[in-house]
Structure formats: structure tokens, C-alpha cells
């Protein structure tokens, strides 16, 4: 069973997913941060593959990506940094990035490396549903790697259903039509979360883009199964000398000392 499915079988609320950029803050911090996230209670991680032209990202994630690239980060290096990760990492790992670096690597070799490395899913914001179905669905299915689709408040119900059929593991609700790191009034997103939640879809819902703190996390999780935090975490890493400590502090700030990970209380 894919680790993502496993996770949502065991825990269907307050799932915390954290995004960070590979090769950041320092080139070889990738594994350190990943381990720190697992230890401090993140349920799922999304490891960002840096790209020169990240059109869906705001300044904070852009900056982390260009720093990683200038330090020499590549997709090949990422696979080698993660090579032995499954000796200690049990939580699901997704790779998140833009299509071009993946295509240059080759979709099939990329997916095979994902399998070898123990990656469970991939998020490629600029690979639309139609192109996926025509060109890549079979490759993903053959390798057993999930592609997670994103929906927005403007995505039509029919399209949401089509994505629910195509997605693997969960559906990623982009909390507003915005690039990463935009602070939006989260409260206004809840009716959208509820609307999607009421559709009776077959996949759990995880919301991202704009969630920054414990309050956001708890409020959002009253409506959907989990959230992704990215920009706020990158900001915490960027100002720190000790990425492991910064990770622990940040995650305990989100989960709260009195709310251990895995708690079912609402």
C-alpha cells in the first residue's frame, strides 16, 4: 500500500504536511530537515525541486530555490541525498517541482528513481490534468507513483470530480488563486473547503498556500483532513543557524506542546 494511503487510513484529521526546498538553507541540509520534520511530528513532507522559473511561487520560495540552485542543487543530487532515507524515514515523501527539470531527466527514469528512493508521490503544478492523462498517466501507474492534483476555488465541480479520479493519495486544495506565500483571509476559504468536502469525493483533502500558524492549522482542519505549510516554514529556516532546531521549534509551534501529533481531538 502506498504510504500516503496508509497515512490517511490511520489518521484522517489534522494531517500536517510540510514543504521545504531541497538544498536549502545549505546544500546538504535536505536530509537533516527531512529527519527533523519526522521527529517533530510532521505527517507528510513535500520536498521542493528547485527551478529557475517557478511561476506559481511567491518571493520566499523563489528565493529559497535560487539559493539552492546557486549552491549547486540538481535533481540528480536530490536523489543521492535521499538515497538511504528509507532506513530511518517512515512518513510519506512527495517531490514537488516544475515539469521542465523532470522532463529533461526523463519522465520514466525520474519515476523509476522515485521508486528506488522510496518516494510516494509527485506534485507538478504545471502539468495539467489533460496532458497527464494523454501522456503520462500510464507511466505513473506502472511505477505506482502518485501524482497529486491541485484544485482552486474556481475549479468547476465536474473538473474537481475528474481530478478526484486522476489524483493519487489526496487532493490538494489551493486555498486561494494565488502564488505561494500570499497572506489571505483564511476564513473566507472555509466555505470553499466545505463545498468541496460535501462533494463526497474519494480522496482526502489537504489545503495549502497561505497557512502559516497553529491557529490557521487548527481552524482549517475543522473543515478538511489536513494542511500543507510551506512559506512560513522556509522563513523559519532562512533566519536560522541550526536547521534541525528551527524545524523542531517551528513544528511544535504549529502542533502545540499540548496537542501531540496524531491526536484525534478536534
Amino acid at each position, binding site marked *: 500500500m502506498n504510504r500516503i494511503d496508509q497515512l490517511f487510513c490511520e489518521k484522517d484529521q489534522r494531517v500536517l504536511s510540510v514543504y521545504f526546498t531541497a538544498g536549502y538553507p545549505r546544500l546538504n541540509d535536505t536530509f537533516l530537515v527531512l529527519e527533523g520534520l519526522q521527529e517533530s511530528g510532521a505527517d507528510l513532507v513535500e520536498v521542493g525541486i528547485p527551478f*529557475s522559473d517557478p*511561476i506559481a511561487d511567491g518571493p520566499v520560495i523563489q528565493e529559497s530555490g535560487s539559493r539552492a540552485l546557486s549552491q549547486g542543487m540538481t535533481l540528480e543530487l536530490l536523489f543521492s541525498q535521499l538515497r538511504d532515507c528509507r532506513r530511518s524515514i517512515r512518513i510519506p515523501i512527495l517531490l514537488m517541482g516544475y515539469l521542465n527539470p523532470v*522532463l529533461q531527466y526523463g519522465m520514466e527514469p525520474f519515476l523509476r528513481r522515485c521508486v528506488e528512493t522510496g518516494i510516494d508521490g509527485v506534485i507538478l503544478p504545471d502539468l495539467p490534468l489533460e496532458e497527464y492523462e494523454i501522456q503520462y498517466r500510464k507511466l505513473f501507474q506502472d511505477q505506482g507513483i502518485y501524482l497529486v492534483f*491541485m484544485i*482552486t476555488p474556481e475549479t468547476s465541480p465536474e473538473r474537481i470530480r475528474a481530478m478526484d479520479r486522476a489524483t493519487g493519495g489526496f487532493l490538494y486544495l489551493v486555498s486561494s488563486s*494565488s502564488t505561494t506565500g500570499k497572506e489571505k483571509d483564511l476564513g473566507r476559504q472555509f466555505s470553499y473547503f466545505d463545498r468541496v468536502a460535501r462533494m463526497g469525493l474519494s480522496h482526502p483533502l489537504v489545503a495549502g498556500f497561505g497557512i502559516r500558524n497553529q491557529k490557521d492549522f487548527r481552524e482549517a482542519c475543522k473543515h478538511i483532513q489536513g494542511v500543507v505549510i510551506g512559506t512560513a516554514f522556509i522563513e523559519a529556516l532562512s533566519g536560522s543557524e541550526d536547521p534541525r532546531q528551527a524545524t523542531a521549534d517551528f513544528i511544535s509551534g504549529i502542533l502545540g506542546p499540548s496537542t501531540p501529533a496524531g491526536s484525534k481531538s478536534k
Partner: protein
Amino acid sequence: MENEQPYQEISQAPRLDWQVNGRGYYGDFGGAFIPEMLHPNVEELRNRYRSILEDSGFQEEFAGLLRDYVGRPSPLYEARRLSEKYGARIFLKREDLNHTGAHKINNTVGQILLARRLGKTRIIAETGAGQHGVATATVCALMNMECVVYMGAVDMARQAPNVARMEMLGAKVVPVQSGSRTLKDATNEAIRDWINHPLDTHYIIGSVVGPHPYPDLVARFQSVISREIRNQLEERTGQPNPDWLVACVGGGSNAAGTFYHYLDIPSVKLVGVEAAGKGIHSGASAASTVLGRPGIIHGSRTLLMQTPDGQITEPYSISAGLDYPGIGPLHAALFQSGRATYLQATDAEALEAAFELTRLEGIIPALEPAHALAKLKSLSFHPDEVVVVCLSGRGDKDLETYIRNLPEKLKTESKSPGKP
């Protein structure tokens, strides 16, 4: 023919091969690789652009503005001294005489009318040389629409007069500090703006690039160039078809417009000229057909300059308008099929050609079409062949660069242009 034209028409649509298919592809190139956040905008455009362009009210308004506001048809000028020098009948399609000084306005007039029909109230654009930004700011002033133009900080410095013009026209010019701070980065920033303002905003993209339907949309608006060339050549030479068409290629919109009605006529040789910068393999060029491999930039699969790891390479050209690491998907398909030939001109060759045209014909071209002129020396013409070069813009914006690069040697050379 979709967007019917104001002028006498010889109705012959390009063969289907050179039209996008339903998914926005020219052969292997094109498509719409966009994040879901842009899906509603792009889909609305895709669903509606053809019917809007085919609407007779739209066509009338577009044709009227092109005629009375832009000043079309632009002249087709037979450049006698240039012809003498290169041994062919060389005509210049004078897009430099358009309002705002370049071909870019053909597209912005079309797109602003489209934006109004889509009910949009806010316009964004990217710009490199500033010509597209000025053309966008101009139509926004005309239509009383809010206008935000993204421009790389490097380009703002080298094209300062155009920044002042945009601001005078009421546009907000936003300096882009990411990446190489040129056209590619300005385009990224415009796309981000669109993601953040999905409902009220239309993105007027400046070339035949971006996700489907933009490459097709922009090519259709620029196709007025080849439609006029056909009529003008017929009148002047008794034959609508030239032997050669030569145009510079940044993203490729003036070239697409120049080629459009001839794509289907194999006897017409099509030549696109890219910027070789300091030399094709110098590490400082924008020669996408030579250095590029298939990849995805700004939502389109095309030939793209990139590292082995798939990071997009920073291009370089003395001309801000050609400083783009890819080409429009139509050009990638024309290149791959061999239907069009792509040549490369260096900074030095472009400068030399600009000085030459100035002294031979009394026309100061923009640096971009100077690249097209620079390759006349590399093509072998028969004396009675007809060559049309798209003079896509005028040189006012580049005067500072020209003055800085006016060495004694060139001054004397260009006084005695005769070459064996």
C-alpha cells in the same frame, strides 16, 4: 479566414499543418502547461477567442483602429540602395512607421478589444525592449483601463526612454529583480500577477509565446503584416508572392506575422534571424534554435535554452527585444520541419547593419530588425528575386546604444558602402 481584414483580400488560409490543433499544438510544440490557478483564465480565453475574433463587430473595430490609430497599412518601401548593395529587389515592410514605433501595437490593439469583450478591467503585460509595454500602455490609455507592466530591472536601465513613455501614458512599471532581470523574468512576474488576479485581469502577452491560445491569438493579430505584403507586392510587382521573407525572432511575433499568409506557399523562402549575442557558442547569446532543446517555458513546449538539469539559461543579446531563451512554438515547428530557416546575427553584425541602413536609406532601425538586415549578406539572391524584410521597429529607443557603439571605423565604412 477568421479575422477578416479591411483590405482587398485574396482568400487563401494557411494549410492546416501550420494552425494549432485543438490542444494548442503545432506538431510537437505548444500546448498549455499551466498551473490549475490559471486554468479558468486560459480556458475562458481558449473557448472564446475564435468566436470573438470572427465577430464582424470586432473585426470592424479592429480594422478601424489599425487604419486610423495605428496608421495601417504600413508602407512597403523598395529600398533601392540596399537592393543595389545586395543584388536583389529588397522591400522593407515599414512596421517602424506604426504608432508607437513597432509591430507590437497590432497585437495590443487586438488584445485590448478582446479584453473588453471578456469583461476585464485591468491589464498586465511584460516587456523587454519596452516596445510591447509602450504599445500596451498606449491602448490602455485609449480604452481607459488600468495598466501594470512588468519589466526586468536590467531592461529598465537600458531602455529608459520607454519606461518614461509608459509612465507618461499612465501605466505602472514594476521593476523585476528576479533571475537575470530581463524579459523571461518579467514574463514570470506577469504570470504570477495573473495567478493572483484571476477575475478582473487580462494578460496581454507580447509575442507568439505562452500557453495556448496565446501563440495563435498573437499570430492572428500580427498576420495583418503578411496580408498587407501580399496586396502591396501584387500591386508593385504584379505578383503577391516574394521569393524571400526575412524577419528577426525574439519570441517570434513579427516573424509570425510576416510569414503567416505564406506558410503554405513553398516557393516563398522563410528566414528567421535570432540574436547570437557575442557569438552563438560564447555563452552570451539568445540563439534558441541552435542551443535549445525541447522544454517548457511560460506554459508552452518549445525549443528552449537550458542546462542539462532543465534550468532555463539566461540569454543575452544587445537587443532587449531578442533577449529571450526560447521561441514561439510555431517557430519551433517551422524549424523542425525545415519549412523556415533560422540564422543568427551577433551584436556586432546587428550594429553594423543598423549603421548601414541608416546611411544607405536614411532609416534608423531598432536593434531587433537590424539582426534581420544583418543576414542579407549571408543569403544568396538572384538579381531579380524579391525580398521582403520586416522592419519591425524604429531605432529611437536604441539611440544611446548606437551612439555608444559608433566607432570611427564604422563611420568610414558606412560612408563607402560599395562592396565587391
